[in-house]
């Protein structure tokens, strides 16, 4: 296994002594804290459409971000060359945020291994032959096309990333990680000569390519995408108005991500700009709801051994039996508020400042049987799959868009409906959760979360739940 420190020392003209010197440079005008974030990553993607392997692409990214914190102020600069001279230029630029006499004491960093080992991958996907990846895409294409003759187009893609990071801080930290990530997506277009519809599926995690043989297969993605596209050809208008909504287990956990997750990130709460600001200890969900953010689940897309500030990830209880318990912290918010670190300081790349972000966010199982929950609904919506979601942190209003949903009529799942957006208010939406099933399922591993222009991989999970009233944005009144 590659050790991050030796990786950077062997491949670039840097040393531990040089790193210590650069941290001193970063604090040369004062400041409370400085850190360096070294990154080397190889991102490969391959796509197939119209039965052609369209293009093989590879992006090699390398660089170092330098951050200086002085009170509530942050200075940031980066270098895309991993060499002392250009990192020093970045360090001196970032240093400008502070203006006092500077730190004279020498900085010493000590290398330490991560406490978690959540994704020991023997053979990283980036080293695997292209032929093996092409074969996975072709298998998906074959399965989708043979599912139904109305499947007219199949688009399949495989993305793998191999990322080595190293974080050094003026607190003496020197810690790194090697982070593999793979993802496969399949999109199908169904055409019955009257209607077009699309279906999509996919999955992945922090794993090697064997994941697609042992955990989830190209055939399973292709089958799910084709089935969804064909099913939607018969879709009727979605209902409009407030009604009972049942969410299927797994990916519909995006509800938690939008309704509460973002609102519990500590930057918004420190600044008092979140609809959840000041609500710790108060009831924000029904007592059936316990919601966790856990970055320590082996192999998951949202999991990390350490966050992008070098802190081990952890399991954080956000809401316990309906009561708001905690926020997701990064180093800046933790320094300013005195709250304990939770390992949620994440960034997209060395070009970006870290922020508090989610990892894997899910609700714990309850006692109900999923079939009883559906049977209890007279007229409502059963939502199985979702596209994206979004939240206004300050007002608490959030949306998430169902891409596969069905009517529930007199306790039975009936017709599929066209896509519709569901809208609610974060601090009150979960107070209307009236049933939680015993079938917690984590998503398949394709989630991508955007905040302030930075995207990071995340996971969600949910058991089957019933929400007694939620506004469904269909067209049929």
């Amino acid at each position, binding site marked *: 296994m590659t050790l991050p420190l030796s990786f950077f020392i062997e491949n670039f003209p840097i040393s531990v002594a040089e790193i210590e010197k650069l941290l001193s440079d970063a604090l040369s005008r004062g400041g409370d804290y400085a850190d360096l974030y070294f990154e080397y990553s190889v991102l490969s*993607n391959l796509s197939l459409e119209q*039965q*052609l*392997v*369209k*293009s*093989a*692409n*590879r*992006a*090699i990214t*390398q*660089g170092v971000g330098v951050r200086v914190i002085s009170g*509530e*102020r942050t*200075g940031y*600069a*980066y270098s*895309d060359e991993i060499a002392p001279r250009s990192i020093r230029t970045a360090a001196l*630029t970032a240093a*400008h*945020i502070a203006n006092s006499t500077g730190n004279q004491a020498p900085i010493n960093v000590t290398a330490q291994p991560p406490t978690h080992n959540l994704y020991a991958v023997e053979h990283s996907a980036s080293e695997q032959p*292209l032929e093996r990846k092409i074969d996975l895409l072709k298998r998906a294409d074959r399965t989708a096309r043979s599912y139904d003759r109305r499947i*007219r*187009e199949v688009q399949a893609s495989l993305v793998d990333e191999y990322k080595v990071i190293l974080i050094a801080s003026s607190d003496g930290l020197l810690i790194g990680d090697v982070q593999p990530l793979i993802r496969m997506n399949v999109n199908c*277009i169904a055409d019955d000569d009257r209607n*077009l519809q699309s279906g999509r599926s996919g999955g992945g995690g922090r794993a090697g390519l064997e994941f697609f043989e042992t955990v989830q297969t190209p055939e399973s993605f292709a089958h799910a995408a084709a089935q969804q596209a064909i099913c939607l050809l018969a879709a009727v208008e*979605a209902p*409009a*108005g*407030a009604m009972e909504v049942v969410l299927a287990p797994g990916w519909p956990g995006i509800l938690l991500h939008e309704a509460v997750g973002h609102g519990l990130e500590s930057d918004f709460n420190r*600044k*008092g*700009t979140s*609809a959840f600001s000041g609500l710790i200890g108060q009831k924000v969900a029904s007592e059936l709801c316990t919601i966790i953010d856990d970055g320590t689940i082996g192999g998951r897309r949202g999991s990390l051994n350490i966050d992008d500030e070098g802190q081990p990830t952890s399991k954080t209880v956000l809401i316990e039996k309906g009561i708001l318990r905690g926020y997701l912290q990064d180093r800046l918010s933790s320094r300013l508020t005195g709250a304990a670190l939770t390992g949620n300081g994440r960034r997209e790349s060395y*070009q970006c*400042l870290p922020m508090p972000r989610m990892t894997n966010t899910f609700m714990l199982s309850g006692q109900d049987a999923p079939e009883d929950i559906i049977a209890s609904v007279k007229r409502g919506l059963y939502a199985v799959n979702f*596209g*994206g*979601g*979004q939240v206004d942190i*300050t*007002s608490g*209003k*959030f*949306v998430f*868009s169902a*891409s596969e949903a069905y009517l529930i009529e007199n306790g039975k799942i009936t017709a599929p409906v*066209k*896509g*519709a*957006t569901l*809208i609610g*208010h974060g601090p009150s939406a979960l107070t209307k959760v009236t049933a939680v099933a015993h079938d917690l399922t984590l998503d398949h591993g394709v989630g991508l979360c955007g905040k302030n222009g930075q995207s990071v991989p995340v996971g969600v999970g949910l058991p089957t739940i019933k929400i007694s009233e939620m*506004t*469904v*944005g*269909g*067209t049929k*009144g």
Partner: protein
Amino acid sequence: MKITQQLLADLVAAAIKCGATEAESIALESTEFSVEVRLGEVETLQESASRGLGLRVIYEGRQASISTSDLQAGSLEKLVTDAVDMARLTSADKAAVLPAPEEFADVTDEDLQLYDPAIAELQTERKIALAQACETAARSFDARIVNSEGASCSTTLGRMLLVTSAGFSGEYRATNCGLMVAPIARAGDQMQVAGWGDRQRWLEKLEAPEKIGQEAAHRVIRKLGARKVPTQEVPIVFESSAAGELLSNFFEAVSGEAVFRRASFLLGKLDEIIASPLLTIIDDGRMPGAVGSRPFDGEGLPTRRTEVVKNGVLRNYLLNNYTARKLGLSSTANATRGLTGTPGVGVTNFYVAPGQSLPEEIIATVKNGFYVTDLIGFGFNPVTGDYSRGAAGLWIENGRLTYPVEEVTIAGNFREMLHGIEIIGNDLRFRGSLAAPTLKISKMMVSGD
């Protein structure tokens, strides 16, 4: 190592020597600066210069690409051989070719006014002052503005170079400057935020910070007290910024990438009536000084003015070379490029041609309806045209704006929505590369209580 057209030409030549039938090299350099202030104080200062280059090779219709920021000679040599090796394994695709030499034009003659030296020379103190002025104007507008997400001023100096084995070699520089603010207002238990800003290539075109701050403040104050409304079908007036989001959704369906994949409700609709005769939509890459202008597209073709919709008739899809060939059409010079991957399709300056009416005249035509100022979420499906998004704004009664509305959705299908455009406003203003005036659609479903 300095990035020059010669360096890219050497890479292209090396790829051809390695066996590639065609090759194209791109480089991007940028210097980015941003300052964020909050409650009057500087919160973050970021400044960096970055550069990278990419190589796309085609071997008998088989494509591969590699990008890197490691510009050492040894690394670049490996980049060339790896790219050619990767290309040999992909599928032959007749549409995967570079534009032919005769399609290029001399693109450097006309000055599109893309580079403002004043932005390059703008001092840090001045940028901080701009952001502070913006936030101060917002915060002093009304006592109910009690907090702020902050204000930011950002600048970018960019340089793009492209060299292809088909004979194209070109580069251009461009500047960009943005000013944004997001004040927070409170009334009782309700807290609201509204972001507002401007982005231009030229500093002198940027709206005054005080004006941006006041507009943001006006927008957040009018949201206070927002409530849901009953579910009903009514006329919708989209404020200019919300109409711009509709236009952005329309682009998803008119992009050649969606059309050739059959993933668009506009498939097969060329030269057919798809919208109200009032609707004309233009993409124009040659507006001097505009944010979306550029001399050539991501494949080296000279940009142009394309009528996408003319008086309700779909005239053109927006295409790059690949999607054009897939559809048996010609590129509209809308290729976009990152350092890696095959060219995409993007807009240049994309807008709805303005009509005659003042926004208030449009509102005055509505007896009972919804004036939409903000949209949230991703509820548009370009394959079917189904549209359902979260919305906020003001309710219209008897031709006048009344109380604020939130936590509702608006839904319809783009096919009907496009035909249902009843009035187009005269208030077109670019705050980026995409713009639309106020629009009225005859009816959509509002879902609330």
